[in-house]
Structures are given as C-alpha cells and as structure tokens.
C-alpha cells in the first residue's frame, strides 16, 4: 500500500478515516446495520471489534516469526476465534441486556473480513507497536462508523440517544428497522463520498 513507513499516529488516522472499514473499504458491513438501531448497541459492538482487532494484531505481530506461512490462515482463525470467545463470554457475563440483543453479532466478529485482512496484510509484516496502532486505528474507525450510523438511526427512528428522549413527536420508526438501516448507511456513504469528492477531490469509495 504505502512505500514509506507511516508514523504511529498516521496509522491510527488511516484506520479512522482513510481506510475506514465501513465507509471507505466497505467490508464488515453486516454489523453496520444489524446493531446500529441504537447507539448503545453500536458502541458495544464497536468496542468489541476494537478490542479484538487490536489484540489480534498484537498477537499476530508477536507470533509472526513462529507461524509457518503455509498454515498461517488457520492459525489466524484460531487467534481471532479465541479473542472473540473471550469478548463473547465477557459480555455475556457483564453486559447481559446488551448481549441479549447483539450476542449473535458479537459471535460473528469471528468472520469479519476486516480483522482477518489487517492481520494478514499488516500485522503479519510489522512490529508490535505499529501493529497495535494499526489495529487501534481500524478499531476506532469502525467504532466511529458505528456511532455515526447509530446516532442518526436512533435519533430519527426513536427520537432518542442512548435511550434518552431527545425529540418529541412521531419519529420515523422505519429508521430503526432493517430497511431504514440500509437506507441510513447508503445515504451516509453517499454523503461522505460527496464530501470527499467536493472538498478533497476524491473519486468516491473504492469498495465494490
């Protein structure tokens, strides 16, 4: 990707904006809709992903010398699955109400292309600190995306934020339903593309 090594801060920034998992890279899309009907859920999943992403990157970076390239994929899988199980059990114990709603999606973090991709593309080739920064950046980027989407959906769909009532009146119930999730993500994605094109001369999302 980049020829010259980036500073740690740049790595974090890159993950947050430049290669934002959802809006720029367009991978790991499922949770962007599934859990963003409320900011609480969105934040919970975002934090879970951030945790897994960072830990996986760190672990892979530490172990990269010992992993035989031929079996690296199953090993990565195991590492990811291990951390997902940890966060799964942690949340099941300490955040019971949220876990009831988004438990399936926590478990499904195991199949996130973004986590696997960063382990393969970055952590496997870099030292511990950059790998952690990269993971953190990616995780924060993901968390941010979750927060933005869930902000709009919860506000428009329920008139609430984090469960606190903000606007009175009839909210657009559809926004917290599946259809509204797709619409919100699509419109936000288009909006960010528009900003990118209008003010930064970008060409829009790579993605699909």
């Amino acid at each position, binding site marked *: 990707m980049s020829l010259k090594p980036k500073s740690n801060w740049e790595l974090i920034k890159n993950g947050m904006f430049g290669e934002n998992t959802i809006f720029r890279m367009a991978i790991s899309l499922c949770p962007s809709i599934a859990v963003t009907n409320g900011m609480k859920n969105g934040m919970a999943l975002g934090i879970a992903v951030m945790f897994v992403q960072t830990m996986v990157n760190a672990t892979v970076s530490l172990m990269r010398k010992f992993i035989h390239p031929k079996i690296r994929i199953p090993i990565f899988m*195991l590492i990811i699955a291990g951390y997902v199980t940890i966060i799964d059990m942690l949340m099941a114990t300490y955040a019971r109400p949220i876990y009831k709603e988004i438990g399936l999606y926590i478990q499904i973090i195991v199949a996130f292309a973004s986590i696997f991709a960063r382990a393969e593309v970055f952590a496997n080739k870099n030292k511990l600190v950059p790998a952690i920064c990269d993971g953190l950046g990616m995780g924060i980027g993901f968390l941010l995306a979750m927060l933005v989407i869930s902000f709009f959906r919860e506000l428009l769909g329920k008139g609430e934020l984090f469960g606190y009532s903000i606007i009175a009146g009839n909210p657009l119930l559809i926004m917290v339903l599946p259809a509204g999730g797709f*619409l919100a993500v*699509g*419109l936000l994605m288009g909006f960010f593309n528009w900003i990118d094109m209008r003010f930064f001369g970008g060409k829009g999302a790579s993605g699909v």
Partner: protein
Amino acid sequence: MGIDWVKLFELVVSSALINNFVFTMFLGLCIFFGVSKKMETAVGMSITFLMVMVVSAALSWIVYQLIMVPLDLGFLKIIVFIGIVAAFVQSADIIMKKVSPVLYYKLGVYLALITTNCIIIAVPLHNAGEHYTFLESIAFAIGSGLGFGLALIIMASIREKLEVADVPAPFRGLPISFILAGLIALAFTGFSGLITL
C-alpha cells in the same frame, strides 16, 4: 417418530422470505454487495452457498449436539464451528478439483470467499442457540440458503439495470446498492406476520 412437515416447511419459508438473512438479519452483506454485480456470479454463488450451508449446518449439529453438549463444551462453539466450516470448505475445494474440474471451475472461485463469511457461521450458531432438532437445522439451513440466493439474484438483476442508470456520482456503486437493499427490505416487510413461529 412423527415428523412435523408443516413446521419444517414453515421454517424453510420463514427463513427464506420473512426472516431473510440479508434483508432482515443483515448477514452476508459483504458477499451480498460484492458478488451481486453480475447475474452469472450471483447464481453460482447462490448454489455454492446453499450447499455449503446445508452441509456445514448438518456437521455442526452433529458435533454440537452429540459431542459438545454432552461434554459441556458449548462455550467453544465459535472456535469449533469456524473450524468445521473451514475444514469442510477446504475439503470440498480439494474434492471438487479432483472429481469435477468443470464444476470447480464454475463454483470453486466462490468457495475461497466462503470461510470468512458470516452467513455460513451464523447458521450453525443460530441452530445451536435455538436448540433445533437435526431436521429443523437442515430446514433452517435450506431456507436461509434459498433466501440468500433469492436476495442475491434479485439484487444482481436490478444492479445490471442500475449499471446503465444515471446515478449521481457520489452514490454510484455501494451507496446506491445499500439504498436499493433498503427499499427491497421495505418491500419484504410485506411478508412480515405471514408465518409466526
């Protein structure tokens, strides 16, 4: 032992249409948006997915209910299921290459994409969560696979049409596909309440 065919049928229909994986459960979206550009790939993907889902659901059920539950190892299900899926996909890959190179040429490319897809792993996880019987697990897998295939094929046919549309530049590609999926999901809400399980 009586088999409740009606319930199985309803399970298939409900998981295919009413609780469609894509439109109401948001699973498999990467693949859904990734391979729905051309009809041919969409059809190939649908077939491959259906087969893999059914087989991995069956294998997972056997392992989970007959080995893990008795041994009280339920907490390991994530690791075990992904292992099963990965192993199955890998062996299917090898077997297909040997047995039917033609089929492999047609569908093999999709196999590689499957392991990292949440929709495949979601089926056994859901089955385990709902404590389905073996047949119910299979029915759920079939329904989900059909639903996913249906979604893929509809999406592909519409996107072929969108390819030539004057979509505003910032919305081209993924954003409009999301909006499209939203509108399809809106239409699919018409099915809600059709079958209550």
